[in-house]
């Protein structure tokens, strides 16, 4: 029996408990269900409780140990832990220091997942060079999922919001359970036969790793790889990675995200077209203006050219000649008219009028001849007497023999 002298401090007690437990219970496997899971954001350590129907124990998994976990632990998940029992001395709390964590019951699934992933990777099915381009302007989108699931509704909503002009072709398949992978493979083949869709979204909503298992099947992976139509995968939640994700042409974290990636925003397309329109209108307008400027210059240059100027000069010469000619003609005209006046004056001086003015008259018979002697006309015949101003008609009554 111990004495008072052996009285321990709490700290010492806890240290002794810790040493005892660590030496007696190390390198053990424990199985149970995770609860109160907390992944410390800054330190990266994981803290949770492992429990079964009757009991529970606090667990810690430090960052260096959880860094390469192939899955994200979650509340309710059945796991198998490898580690040692220790005591958190500050609280006197017994806890399990976890070195390895494996999902329980899925150990085989995980092994086959890893094996298949490695095989396909080696075969090159994940290589970037095989990734098909996701069409920038799809007209029709294929959706391969359960037609009654929430995932399909989400996808449909996103497609309608972003691009309601795009046609949706649903191939409804079982996304989990017996016969599911065969239906998915058939669906992919069907889309490739039918040929109207530009891209296929395959996926389903979140669930346990078993629920998502269809998308880890080799037949599904190969079918995705062999599709001539590009495939976007959106399986489960952000943290779920499936073989389908690795082999698909584009991996989206969720079905909704897959729909986002599959179609461009209709508004962006319309805006783009409007911009193109403005661009080509501007180009044509500029070129028309350039052309008009060019025409104007050409016109100027042509009008400065010789032919026109020659014609102009000839026209001018002709009009000058015409002017000179008419001046000359006018001059000649007045000269002639003066001459004429002069001559007519001379003529009138030489004519009989001057004589007639002095009182003489000229007898003219009916035939217009000047009567020079009395025998020229008969007795009783009338004749004309022309005088200076006028004249008169006379009649021969007798001859005068001796003058």
């Amino acid at each position, binding site marked *: 029996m111990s004495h008072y002298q052996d009285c321990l401090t709490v700290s010492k007690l806890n240290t002794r408990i810790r040493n005892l437990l660590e030496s007696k219970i190390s390198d053990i496997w424990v199985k149970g269900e995770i609860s109160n899971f907390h992944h410390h954001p800054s330190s990266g350590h994981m803290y949770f409780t492992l429990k079964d129907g009757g009991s529970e124990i606090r667990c810690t998994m430090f960052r260096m140990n959880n860094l390469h976990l192939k899955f994200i632990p979650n509340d309710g998940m059945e796991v198998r832990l490898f580690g040692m029992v220790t005591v958190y001395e500050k609280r006197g709390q017994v806890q399990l220091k976890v070195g390895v964590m494996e999902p329980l019951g899925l150990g085989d699934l995980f092994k086959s997942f890893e094996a298949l992933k490695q095989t396909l990777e080696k075969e090159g099915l994940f290589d970037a060079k095989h990734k098909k381009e996701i069409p920038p302007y799809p007209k029709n989108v294929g959706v391969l999922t359960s037609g009654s699931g929430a995932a399909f509704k989400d996808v449909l909503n996103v497609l309608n919001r972003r691009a309601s002009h795009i046609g949706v072709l649903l191939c409804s398949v079982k996304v989990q359970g017996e016969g599911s992978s065969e239906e998915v493979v058939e669906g992919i083949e069907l889309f490739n036969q039918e040929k109207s869709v530009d891209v296929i979204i395959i996926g389903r909503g979140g669930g346990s790793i078993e629920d998502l298992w269809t998308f880890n099947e080799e037949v599904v992976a190969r079918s995705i790889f062999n599709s001539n139509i590009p495939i976007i995968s959106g399986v489960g939640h952000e943290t779920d990675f499936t073989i389908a994700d690795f082999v698909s042409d584009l991996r989206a974290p969720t079905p909704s995200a897959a729909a986002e990636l599959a179609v461009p925003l209709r508004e962006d397309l319309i805006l783009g077209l409007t911009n*193109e329109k403005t661009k080509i209108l501007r180009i044509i307008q500029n070129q028309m203006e350039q052309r008009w400027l060019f025409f104007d210059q050409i016109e100027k240059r042509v009008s400065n050219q010789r032919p026109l100027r020659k014609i102009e000069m000839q026209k001018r010469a002709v009009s000058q000649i015409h002017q000179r000619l008419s001046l000359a003609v006018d001059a000649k005209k007045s000269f002639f008219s003066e001459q004429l006046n002069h001559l007519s004056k001379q003529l009138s001086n030489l004519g009989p009028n001057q004589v007639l003015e002095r009182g003489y008259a000229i007898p003219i018979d009916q035939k217009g001849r000047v009567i020079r002697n009395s025998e020229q006309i008969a007795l009783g015949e009338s004749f004309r007497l022309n005088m200076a101003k006028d004249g008169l008609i006379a009649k021969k009554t007798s001859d005068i023999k001796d003058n």
Partner: protein
Amino acid sequence: MSKEREKNDFERSIDRLEKLVDNMESGEASLEQNLSWFEEGMDLIRLCQSHLTDAEQRVQRLIKKNDHGFEIQEIE
């Protein structure tokens, strides 16, 4: 394994339109050539716009038939 994707008519229209605009922007073509590209471009824009403004979402269902064929049904 090379997989050549077949382009749909909308995508081909957009491609053609981009090429026309590039050609026109290069500034090397004659006005006559540009005018003919311009007309073609405007037709393509009209075509694409009418496709985009045809905004009713159309959802159909692809169904496998027993004789290895398929059929398409309207839904909603």
